[in-house]
């Protein structure tokens, strides 16, 4: 039991001008009537620019739902989410798709690379879909950071899991999005490779100024971030700044996960 666990949930931040993305009274209900499941019960949260945030919580706590709704993958049933100040509920599918394409990056647990495209093509895919030309200097920086060297023209099945996930991270970085969402990005990797990816993400925040929000259940992963939010039963119940593995571990255990 740490001191922070007793603190009341943080209220809506007064100033969201520095927010890459934020949610106000976010609600998500699946189904209706007796069978209704409240995945989010009024969540207020701000993800500030240039920060690396982890979201943790037990299964069914709503952490994935929160991320999906904030990333414009799914829609809320109440409240509002913003990306760069744009209220997502006002956007139709096309505008929302455009917003995801131009301002949001994704890193999935299962890499989700296109098997028929090589590493280079996978990285530039979002820009190709938009018909936009990548910023050469930035691309050079990203590709260097990925560190694949001469393997850039290899297909995903010719790369190791860690290499594939680095390509996936690079793809998320490539379009210089306002914010990158990760869904257990190291869930499929062994701890060493996972650490490598997390280092890479950390560097993207520190050196390239990116904003990353990551859902994870692993305290080690969470320790790489600047801040951890704890969700339970569809609400933010706690947060921890500058987390360490042990502190997060203790906190998670106290939540009975």
């Amino acid at each position, binding site marked *: 039991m740490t001191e922070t666990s007793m603190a009341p949930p943080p209220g809506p931040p007064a100033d969201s001008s520095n927010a890459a993305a934020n949610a106000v009274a976010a609600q998500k209900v699946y189904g209706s009537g007796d069978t209704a499941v409240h995945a989010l019960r009024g969540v207020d949260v701000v993800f500030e620019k240039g920060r690396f945030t982890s979201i943790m919580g037990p299964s069914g706590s709503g952490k994935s739902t929160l991320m999906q709704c904030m990333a414009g*993958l*799914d829609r809320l049933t109440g409240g509002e989410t913003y990306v760069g100040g744009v209220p997502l509920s006002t956007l139709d599918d096309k505008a929302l798709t455009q917003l995801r394409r131009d301002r949001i990056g994704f890193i999935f647990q299962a890499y989700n690379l296109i098997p028929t495209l090589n590493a280079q093509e996978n990285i530039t895919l979002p820009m190709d879909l938009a018909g936009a030309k990548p910023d050469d200097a930035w691309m050079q920086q990203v590709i260097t950071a990925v560190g694949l060297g001469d393997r850039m023209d290899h297909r995903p099945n010719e790369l190791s899991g860690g290499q594939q996930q680095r390509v996936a991270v690079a793809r998320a970085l490539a379009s210089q999005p306002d914010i990158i969402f990760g*869904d257990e990005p190291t869930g499929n990797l062994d701890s060493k490779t996972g650490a490598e990816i997390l280092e890479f993400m950390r560097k993207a925040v520190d050196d390239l100024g990116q904003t990353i929000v990551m859902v994870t259940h692993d305290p080690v992963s969470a320790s790489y971030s600047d801040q951890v939010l704890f969700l339970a039963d569809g609400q933010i119940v706690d947060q921890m700044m500058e987390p360490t593995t042990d502190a997060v571990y203790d906190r998670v255990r106290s939540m009975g996960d």
Partner: protein
Amino acid sequence: MTILKLAIRGIRSAFGRLLLTIIAIVTGVGFVSGAFILADSLSNSFTTVFEEGFADTDAQVIQPSAGFGDSQGGPQGNSTLPDSLTAEIAALPEVGRATPTVALNDPDSFNQMAVLDINDEPVRPAGPPILAFSWDGETLGGIDSFEGTAPGSNEVALSAEYVDAINLANGSDVAIGDTLVITTPNDGKVEYTLSAIVTFNVTIGEFYLLVDIDTAQQLFEKEGKIDAIDLAAAPGVEVDDLIAAVQQVVPEGAEVLNQADVLADQLAAFDQVIGIIRNILLGFAGVALFVSLFIIYNTFAILVTQRLRQIGMLRAIGATQSQIRWSVVIEGFFVGIIGSLLGFLAGFGFAFMIKAAFQATGGFPETGTVVETRTIVVAFGVGILASVFSALLPATVAARVTPIAAMRNEPPSQSSVSRRAAIGGGVFILGAIALALGLTGTGGEFDALGISLSEVWVVIIQLAIGAILIFLGVIMLSVLFAGPFVDTLGRSSVLGAVMLGLGVGLLALMFSIGDGVPQSVGEADQAFFAVVKWISFFVKLFVATVAIVVGLSILISKARGGKATGIGGSAGALEGSLARQNAARSPRRTAATAGALAIGIALIATVAVMGESLKKTFADSLEVTLKADLYVYNPETFESFSADIAAEIERIDGVAAVSAGRNSTVKLGVDEEGEDDLVGIYGFNAATGTSIINPSIVGDFDGVLGAGEVMLFEAEAEDRNLGVGDSLDIAFDGDGSSEAFSIVALFSDNGSVNGSSIIVDRSTLVTYGKDDVDDTGVLLQEDVDVESVKAEVSTVVREVSADLAVEDRQEFVDTVSGQIDGLTTLINYLLGFTLLVAFVGVINTIVLSVVERTREIGLLRAVGTTRRQIRSMIRWEAVIVCVFGSVLGIGMGVLFAWAGISAVPEGFIKLAIPYESILFTILIAAFAGVLAAVLPAFFAGRKNVLEAISG
């Protein structure tokens, strides 16, 4: 660009899976392009031949016929011109040459003349016709050279190809100066000396038999008449001037045609035939394409399901719905292009081979294979359209995939089963309405949008649309009962019982009402059919036996296993149950796969039921109406023969009575559209009354017709509001005159009078120049030996014509049934292609569903299911789907056949269902399922357990 890249890469990676889909398109496009290329090439060859033939002719005089078709004559060509006209025209200064020609020129009279071989059999090779013409030794277009002299009296010239055929039949060579026996249409057998062997520049396999003009006029009964005069202009005279001059002297109604018109005229008839061949092939192409729609749809639907994650990811990182939709459509487009290209090549090869076969057998001219731009456009057009169209629905489903699918693995939302069934119900009802409109004939004529169609076509189109809609409706509705059907059939006790029942049923039918063990057939030319019969007998026997064995073994293992239901009851229960659940789990896919199969089977069942109904109707009708003990007719060409034969037969000992019959067509005035109102008429020997031919006369009438008296077919009488005592004006010639007849009786069965509506005494037809006969019924005295009288009759008949057959009633019924069988078999072979496509579709679906279930199969393997069990599971699933498809198809086939039969006016045909073929088809479908599962089962069994689970 990215979407294009993704689509192309997608095809490349899934090429193996798309390969079977591509085959589906190849078949359809192959038929389309083959049909066009073959037809265009044939047409081109005919044109070349005729151009050669008329190279020396600047113009031609003919007399277009004012009459109408004779039932013997088909479309009557031209009337004759007077002999004297030739001299009159030749006297004109503009005319350089005027050559009269006489020919057996109506297409149905081809083959009437033939040279007899040393065994007294006419030399008449299958396929190309024998054409008989007059020839003066100088002109007649197309002749390159000849040896010998032009034929004079009692002489004949033959084309070199025909001489070859005769030599082949004789086993020795005939030479100029030899005497040949020739069978003729009107004068029986004649003996002529071979005076010349003629080589034509170009032929398309046809044979020529040439005589001088006097002989031709006598042989063809055109004394004092000629068919046409070929003209060449005098030196320095323009063709237009020649035509203008000749026009002054020809009789009224005669036409002077220039070379181009002559060619067009001559080609029209051939183009019509070519057009029919082309349209039949196009019909099959349509069916094949219709089948491939289902297969392509299925493939793309499954591919989309397999790519859920990938599509979800693309959506998440910013692909729009329309980009996703396009990527699937573009994939469909490329599959269409590849399939069309291969199909076009296949069609080209098909047409080329058929043409090569023609050339090898019949001196077909070496003109090129014609590929019109239109052929390419249509072939690629239909291939690509079919493919893109089928990919549209899966593309829409793909576009609906949510971005979250990248993280979960949930199937996209699809229209619910109930909604689909509701749409299916609506489509079915629309189809039923169209069918009902067609059946009741309430459509009338169609005349709008610049298209005018006669009533018959409206009915046909209504029936066709009805059939297609009902088909689609049933397939959509089948989603509802695919689950329960598969679920029930998949229970091992039910499946065992059904297999056993089908096997026993088939055996019972084969040996009771079916043909049973084939009788040995002596004649050499029937040996082929005997072999076919034996093969089909043994195949059926084998199939029935296997079905019984399989059914019994399922039931026995079931009984041993003890438990009545549920997994694990018997050794085979687990995989059987899983197979059943797999097939029932996705009723949509089961329905679409079964649907592809059902189309082919529905069409085959339609043809089978209609054929069976025709045979049954015919046999039943003859039972009542044909009282003759022997029947004399020409089974090859149904040509008329001299009435003298009937008189001679009557003189034979043991013959009680003879009725000679003649068919013709007469005009009963003009209908509302100004078209001639034509009906069939039958002249019979009224003196014998109904003792030989009994068309089921209504009321008391002995069938003895006097002059000026007719009997009218009951249904025809109802249509025309006529009855006994009314008068009927009948025109026998095209000259406009008609004669009033009095209706003395009605008859209700026109089966024995070749479907004619009017019966008169044959003497009436003789009055109008139709003095030959088409058939002769012979009634024998009681207590005579039928075989010996038959032998005597045969001798008399063979004396006159080598083509006539003498058959007793059973033989006659068998002959006609055989012809119906031959037709249905031919159609079924072509439809078999469709089944092959559908079969490929079944393999395709099962392969894909195995891929889709990789994880599940891996799990089953991990928990201890053996490879054998996995293979067995896949196999049963295929069997269940195939049986479902065949049952659907047969149900619809019977319905369509019923509709088709009901649409025939006057309720002439009675519905008869070929139960034996139906049971056989279901069992064959089950076997096809086993076969279809071989490849997919192999793949499934081979899967690495760990990879499958983690995959």
